[in-house]
């Protein structure tokens, strides 16, 4: 119990530091966002705006009141973040939360589907490779897995969009669903969502499963050589039980932390892919923000991605003891 509290405390501290750093970045970078905003407003206002008015507008957009002392600015900024107020996007002229918020489910849909695919395909393939260790199938899959795992996802994305999107026109080249459909729980809409998501998901899945397969293969081969597996076979346990309860369970265990870190990246894991497929998700807006120097939006995106990662790793840490009885207690374990 005290471990859980400590662990949660550490995560909270990490998030706190991240948000503080984001404040520091916005506030302190020379020629940074605040100067940029000020210059922009002076330009737009043509000298009509008073310095106080400019400061007031900057404060509204970034949650940073420039004419206050730094510590007051900091407290204000942190309080707003805690209240879910990330400032206003300069480009979209809307609160950051209402730009990013609606984009989150779409990004999560892409990355979570891709992760689910890569993990299940990778783990099954890896286990199968281990059972067939040394066969042509094993050697070929290892090679293919290595090559795909070393390929950047955007290369696959570009190939997919070039051929399946433009050349053969089999898949849409952008958007989240066909614009004439009404969003809701109806079949044409869901089908369209799936159709539009297919290529982005595929680009991430194709390069992802190789890594999982290779680790699963290695882990399974190790488990297959364990004494307890031999004892289980001699005890006459059904093959299915041995495969699932003995091999799979013990081989997947070391990959669990990796999986949780991967889950932590579902909010920010598709930045480049979303841009290639013009898919308005978190990553899409993040790049937009960078291009448009939309600092409040950028900071909001960064904070969201970091917090998601910290949450993922915390969940991994807290649940690991439940999955692997040897790790319970965990007073001395590393934490992030």
């Amino acid at each position, binding site marked *: 119990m005290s471990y859980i509290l400590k662990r949660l405390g550490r995560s909270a501290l990490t998030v706190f530091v991240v948000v503080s750093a984001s404040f520091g970045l916005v506030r302190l970078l020379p020629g940074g966002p605040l100067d940029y905003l000020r210059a922009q407003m002076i330009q737009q206002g043509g000298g009509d705006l008073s310095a106080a008015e400019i400061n007031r507008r900057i404060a509204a957009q970034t949650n940073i009141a420039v004419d206050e002392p730094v510590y007051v600015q900091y407290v204000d900024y942190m309080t707003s973040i805690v209240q879910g107020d990330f400032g206003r996007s300069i480009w979209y002229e809307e609160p950051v939360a209402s730009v990013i918020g609606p984009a989150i489910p779409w990004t999560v849909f892409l990355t979570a589907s891709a992760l689910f695919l890569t993990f299940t395909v990778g783990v099954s393939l890896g286990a199968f490779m281990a059972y067939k260790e040394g066969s042509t199938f094993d050697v070929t899959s290892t090679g293919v897995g290595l090559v795909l795992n070393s390929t950047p996802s955007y290369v696959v994305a570009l190939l997919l969009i070039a051929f399946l999107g433009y050349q053969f026109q089999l898949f849409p080249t952008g958007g989240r669903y066909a614009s004439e459909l009404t969003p809701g729980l109806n079949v044409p809409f869901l089908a369209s969502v799936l159709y539009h998501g297919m290529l982005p998901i595929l680009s991430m899945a194709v390069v992802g499963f190789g890594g999982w397969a290779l680790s699963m293969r290695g882990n399974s081969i190790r488990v297959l050589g*364990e*004494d*307890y597996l*031999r*004892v*289980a076979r*001699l*005890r*006459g*346990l*059904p093959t299915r*039980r041995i495969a699932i*309860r*003995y091999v799979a*369970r*013990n081989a997947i*265990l070391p990959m669990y932390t990796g999986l949780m870190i991967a889950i932590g990246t579902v909010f920010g894991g598709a930045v480049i892919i979303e841009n290639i497929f013009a898919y308005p998700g978190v990553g899409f807006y993040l790049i937009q923000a960078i291009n448009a120097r939309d600092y409040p939006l950028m900071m909001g995106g960064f904070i969201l991605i970091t917090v998601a990662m910290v949450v993922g790793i915390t969940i991994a840490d807290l649940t690991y003891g439940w*999955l*692997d*009885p*040897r790790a319970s207690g965990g007073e001395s374990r590393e934490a992030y």
Partner: protein
Amino acid sequence: MPRERHETGRDASDPIVEVRNVSVTYDLENRDAMVLDDVSIDLRRGEILGVVGESGSGKSMLANAMMDAVEEPGITTGEVRYYPESDAAPINVLDLTDEELRELRWEEISMVFQGALSSFNPTMKIRGHFEETLKAHDYDVEEGMERARELLSDLYLDPDRVLDSYSHELSGGMSQRALIALSLILEPEVLLMDEPTAALDLLMQRSILSLLDDIKQKYDLSILFITHDLPLVAGLADRLAILYAFELAEVGSTEQVVSNSQHPYTRALLKAVPNLDAPLSTMQPIEGTAPNPAHAPSGCHYAPRCPLATEECHQEQPPWFDVADDQRTACFHHDEAEEAVALEPGVVDA
């Protein structure tokens, strides 16, 4: 009177497992490595048979062959006959189908391994191991778990605590005893123990051995006990079989083998046993090293290291000689052994 090599112990009344001419070979690139060479031995009903040999002499292979559990790519040849009842027709273990073998293992012939900690699934409680074994063999789980509790308490363990533990929560001695209980859960007739105490400290070894005798009586077991520790098993076993370089050297009652061995290897082995009471100078290592399984000598395997070896020994494999009542030695020079390898009295207590 010399006997044929496969006749070891044929006249023994009431064997439960007969091993006849069993060899285990591994097919290496261009020659076969024989890790068990034409071994014939009986396990008698209700006895504890100690099999002693140095590392790599084929002890574990013998146990594995007895339940046809030699791992790929090892090839087991010969015959293993199992007699469920005294007068019943034997079951030919090496000829069984996979399903018949699955039923024989653990239900009739069970095995305890060295390294109990690694014999349990680390992510499953001990209870799960008992339950899944009962289920896999269609035993009544409730009744079986009752038996598991009894077995555990017979082994001086707290059943509830052990059943609700993971293997990493048990000490070495506790998990070894839990493994013994697991091996007996389906009420087998034969228990093969492969160095079950090797990883334990001396105190724990002794206490497990003393438990073993009680367990054997209570559950009517016949036990094959494999070890490299001759003094350890001498106090426990009814009979001893000495294995050297994939072959049996000598088989006989413990007392005979320990105090009246007629085989130069057994005698040299007894001399190599450390003893606190005897001066260090009486302890002697055996010169040379054991042969490689791919290059075993063509005659007696011990001949290259044997002080008594003659041309005959290098050319021919010695048959069994009856050297005393219920004691057989595979040595041409068995009658000279006693003189050639003198023993300090009382090195090992039978």
